């Protein structure tokens, strides 16, 4: 079942956003590393909206669900159009810290943390979806397996 949450697009909402992701990870029984990656990507994408997205007060909508083979989180905002998949990787990842610019790492981390990141702009909304594949345990062939009913 898809979970939904709508919060003001402010840093004060950050805790609620993280709780939302924690609940999904817990429901999916994700391993610590996968849960960490899902949270990291959400952190970075939401931070980007809060920091750069809105000139005036706005809202952030989160959707998410646990599917048999994956967990996904969708971040929806009405801020200025922004496609996080088009931002190039930082050019200086191989340079020593003394020669690097401090910023520009968040979206790189978000993209690399998850198995899929997609974006679309629809009716004035940025819709960004991140997906982490679940590690489904091998099924015992002696036990009948009934896939979940659609819907």
């Amino acid at each position: 079942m898809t979970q939904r949450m709508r919060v003001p697009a402010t840093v004060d909402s950050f805790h609620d956003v993280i709780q939302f992701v924690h609940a999904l990870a817990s429901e999916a029984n994700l391993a610590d590393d996968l849960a960490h990656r899902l949270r990291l990507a959400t952190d970075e994408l939401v931070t980007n909206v809060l920091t750069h997205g809105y000139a005036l007060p706005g809202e952030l909508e989160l959707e998410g669900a646990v599917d048999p083979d994956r967990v996904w989180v969708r971040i929806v905002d009405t801020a200025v159009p922004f496609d996080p998949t088009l931002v190039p990787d930082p050019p200086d990842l191989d340079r020593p810290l003394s020669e690097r610019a401090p910023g520009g790492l968040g979206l790189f981390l978000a993209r690399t943390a998850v198995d899929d990141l997609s974006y679309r702009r629809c009716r004035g909304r940025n819709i960004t979806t991140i997906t982490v594949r679940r590690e489904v345990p091998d099924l015992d062939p002696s036990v009948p397996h009934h896939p979940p009913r659609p819907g």
Partner: protein
Amino acid sequence: MTFTADLCHEDRTAVLTLTGDLDTPSAQVFQDQMQRAINGQPDRLVLDLTALRHLTSAAVRVLVVARQKLADEVPIILVGAQTGVERTIRLIGIDRSLVFSDARPGDR
């Protein structure tokens, strides 16, 4: 989980112990404590990450700036980084300018 950053000095070593989740809202606390550590002009800076569960790019920015402010001969030593935290640091490639350790320098 609430983030805390406790700074203490052991001789010429600044030890910053981080606990909890280091994300966007808590990055300012980390930045302030890191600046205090730098102001003390330590011979080395130890970050005890044993109880740090989560780290984002906001924290990495603070590490980058700290490395640039400290003299080249002052090492930044990361102690006890958990898997997810270490993965983030290595992914960004800043691990080459930092030192990883399983224990604090001087610990037996």
